[in-house]
């Protein structure tokens, strides 16, 4: 018999699942996200996992987490501090306790709090017993034992039983937040259709978790978060890396030429390669090269031969590709270079997010080597910007950077599925005419003809040596060199003519403008929204095009008394803005491998315009 529980309606909830890297927390989190998306909430996720694949069980450095924020309103961040923490072991509790809200609910697997695990987590006494968690709503669940009981009768090893306890925890959370089990039951059915025993075990554990909530009195309240009123349309949940992959396939379709990806696996960009390798029936060619350099070099070769060529990497890989990017600049071939940024320098923090490769993209090559730079602002925006990067590359015959970052790449949110016909066309006109043909002649966009091998009569040579204007033969003539350096620069600047102007959001008459770029969008948007609700005047602009800057950038920047630039580096956009527009900006920098909390930005703004701090 179902008891009558109090149902409390909430506007939004932030929940974090945390456990060993082998506990399946990423899977649990993404299942909760999918179900929540299908339920109609707006949501934003933040997976956070260690660089080690299976760090020793129970250790602090082996803790993997997945946070998601869901709401009946539109939201733009994965949430500052969790309202609910699900901790599968003492290490997960210890690592995550500092992040959660005062009074938050902590659901723990009490069976994991044994002397061995407590010692591994460097707990001197059991936090479940020593009153150190006073002030939190601690819910102790014998997760391991309950899972084992639910699976009694199935021929499973202890190890296998342990591995299904995440589904028990997920079931319990589905009950607590009033979500349906069906989407995950269907997913398990599909995933384990060839392993009947795991199918049964996982479904049983999930259902048992749900009914554990229903039949015990560990929770007195259930929570309900109503569907959000999103813009009308069809939606699906999408991560930034998936969105980049789809953006490329869409661009290839609209351009009418095959997509070629040359890439070398690197965290956190590998999923783009993996995704695209599925799409062979779209004519997508993925070449997993021997190294980063071969990744881009093969893409340049494919571009020369007429494919829509892209390469994907992260910071260290981008460093290796620098020389080849210069070659693409010199040979004026279309190419998109995706940098899914991570913590640097060197190997840095491979699985943590950062936005510190902007200056590498801008300047990280020998000689005067201008490359357009686009930066995605949200996971779903990765689709639009990947498409846009391809369009610009082809139209202007140039390599183009698309900067994403770990947090966008792995994070997901609802994506309003676009109508294929509404996507812009990407005209591709390979040069055919022998009579009027000069390989470095330029059209109205200053771009040169794309004449591909196999076309009779257009045989020509290109390369990294300086090219003679119009004819494209090797030229060491000093004046020609300066002319061509200026020409390549002018061509990239010309893109400014068609990119959208900056749009000032918020209060046009505010004294303070927040100017941000890339993945900082969500935190800034939420902070500005919160402050405006409280009556503060704040304005916001967001840069998705950084090189060249939108045409009205100077006009916008000089309208405000103060400009705050929050970024997760030591002031890279700030430097560019200061040098390009001679404006003063206030830098606000955080370099901790995680996104800004919106409260951090709110408090920074408060410190500038006055008001009361938020927690």
């Amino acid at each position: 018999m179902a008891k009558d529980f109090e149902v409390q309606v909430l506007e939004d909830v932030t929940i974090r699942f945390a456990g060993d890297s082998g506990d399946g927390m990423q899977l649990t989190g993404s299942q909760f996200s999918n179900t929540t998306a299908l339920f109609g909430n707006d949501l934003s996720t933040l997976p956070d996992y260690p660089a080690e694949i299976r760090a020793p069980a129970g250790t602090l450095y082996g803790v993997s987490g997945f946070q998601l924020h869901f709401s009946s309103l539109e939201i733009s961040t994965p949430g500052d501090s969790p309202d609910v923490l699900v901790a599968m072991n003492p290490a997960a509790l210890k690592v995550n306790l500092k992040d959660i809200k005062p009074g938050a609910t902590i659901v723990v697997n009490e069976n994991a709090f044994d002397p061995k695990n407590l010692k591994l987590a460097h707990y001197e006494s059991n936090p479940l017993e020593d009153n150190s968690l006073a002030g939190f709503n601690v819910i102790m669940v014998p997760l391991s034992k309950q899972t084992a009981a639910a699976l009694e009768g199935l021929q499973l090893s202890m190890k296998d039983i342990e591995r299904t306890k995440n589904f028990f925890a997920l079931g319990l959370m589905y009950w607590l937040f009033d979500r349906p089990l069906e989407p995950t039951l269907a997913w398990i059915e599909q995933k384990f259709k060839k392993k009947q025993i795991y199918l049964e075990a996982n479904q049983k554990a999930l259902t048992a978790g749900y009914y554990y909530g229903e039949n015990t009195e560990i929770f007195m309240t259930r929570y309900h978060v109503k569907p959000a009123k999103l813009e009308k349309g069809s939606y699906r949940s999408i991560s930034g890396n998936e969105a980049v992959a789809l953006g490329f396939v869409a661009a290839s379709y609209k351009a009418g030429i095959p997509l070629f990806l040359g890439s070398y696996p690197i965290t956190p960009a590998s999923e783009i390669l993996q995704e695209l390798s599925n799409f062979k029936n779209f004519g997508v060619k993925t070449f997993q090269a021997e190294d980063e350099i071969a990744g881009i070099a093969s893409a340049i070769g494919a571009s020369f031969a007429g494919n829509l060529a892209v390469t994907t990497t992260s910071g260290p890989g981008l460093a290796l590709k620098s020389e080849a990017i210069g070659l693409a600049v010199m040979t004026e071939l279309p190419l998109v270079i995706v940098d899914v940024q991570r913590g640097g320098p060197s190997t840095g923090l491979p699985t943590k997010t950062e936005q510190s490769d902007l200056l590498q993209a801008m300047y990280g090559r020998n000689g005067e080597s201008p490359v357009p730079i686009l930066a995605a602002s949200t996971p779903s925006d990765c689709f639009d910007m990947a498409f846009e990067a391809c369009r610009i590359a082809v139209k202007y015959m140039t390599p183009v950077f698309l900067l994403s970052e770990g947090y966008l790449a792995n994070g997901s949110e609802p994506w309003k599925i676009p109508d294929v016909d509404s996507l812009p066309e990407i005209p591709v006109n390979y040069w055919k005419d022998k009579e009027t043909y000069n390989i470095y002649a330029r059209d109205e966009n200053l771009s040169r003809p794309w004449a591909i091998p196999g076309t009779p009569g257009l045989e020509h040579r290109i390369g990294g040596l300086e090219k003679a204007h119009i004819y494209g033969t090797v030229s060491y003539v000093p004046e020609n060199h300066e002319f061509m350096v200026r020409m390549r620069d002018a061509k990239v600047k010309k893109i400014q003519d068609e990119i959208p102007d900056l749009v000032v959001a918020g209060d046009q008459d505010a004294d303070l403008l927040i100017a941000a770029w890339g993945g900082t969008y969500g935190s800034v948007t939420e902070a500005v929204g919160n402050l405006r609700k409280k009556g503060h005047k704040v304005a916001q602009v967001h840069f998705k095009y950084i090189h060249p800057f939108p045409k009205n950038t100077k006009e916008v920047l000089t309208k405000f008394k103060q400009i705050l630039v929050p970024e997760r580096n030591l002031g890279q956009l700030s430097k560019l803005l200061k040098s390009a527009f001679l404006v003063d900006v206030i830098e606000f920098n955080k370099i901790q491998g995680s996104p800004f909390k919106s409260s951090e930005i709110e408090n920074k703004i408060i410190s500038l315009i006055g008001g009361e701090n938020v927690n």
Partner: protein
Amino acid sequence: MSTNNVMENVKLTAKDFATNQDVRWCPGCGDYSILAQVQRVSPDLGIPKEKFVWVSGIGCSSRFPYYMNTYGFHSIHGRAPAIATGVKLANPDLSVWVAAGDGDLLSIGGNHFIHACRRNIDMKVILFNNRIYGLTKGQYSPTSEKGKKTKSSPYGSIDFPFLPVNMAVASGATFVARSLDRDPKHLQAMMFRAAAHHGLAFIEVYQNCNIFNDGAYEPLTDKETKADNVVVLEHGKPLIYGKNNEKGIRMDGMNPVVVDLSKGEYSVNDLWIHDEFDENPGRSFVLAHFSDLKDFPTPIGVFRQIQKSTYDGDLFAQLDEVTKLKGKGDLAKLFRSGNTWEVA
């Protein structure tokens, strides 16, 4: 297939493959001969001119594409095999050729070279091996002999050299040959063979740098000494050499032995019979290793030719296969894959 090819029925000549650019190699450079042989054989390969793509890296020999009136790409140091791979995968209908020096292909570009061999990309790789860095003016290269005195090794190089043929064979190249810049006929024959091969064809050309490493191959090219120092590999024929064909190589277990046929102890019937198509790469290694052995001749010719599926062939076969299986991609459907929901 070549459509709209106005040149279709016109027989091209070597001149049609020359560009209007002045060739800027040093007078007397071995590269001239290689260029001449390539231009000579190109009209007879049965490939429309517009389908040739010559890709190079950096170095003296990497200027090669500028002198070929075909499509060409003079790229960056060491990366030619990777760029050529991209060209071939973008359009498998093209005939893709790489021109590379020993520093370019084996030092900075060693990784790309071995992986192109491993994948058996259908392209031709011509190594201009002069055993020296020419364009940087005379430092030792990865094929320079140990002890060599150069500008960067005034007391003698302490590097052991690579044997390029062995690298290619060990990496899985399906056609491996060696020739000499000063033996135009042989070089042309090797070019024809390489062009006809389906898969990665590698030709090591011993090439003289008359400025920084002059005479490196003189014992192999000089009329007086050539016969005693070079053994020409021919399929099904014994390994025989010498001014009067008086010397031969026989195998003693796994070891090659030079024998004198004039003394009556051994005859032609005792000699090693060359088998280009031997699946086992062992004999190719032994042959390539001759240059490390005292008093052994240097083999030229086709070391090895085997048939294996190519990466490019398999790539397109897989695209077709998956398309047959799943149907031609539907973008709208792809957008909607996974769970979707409607907001009214």
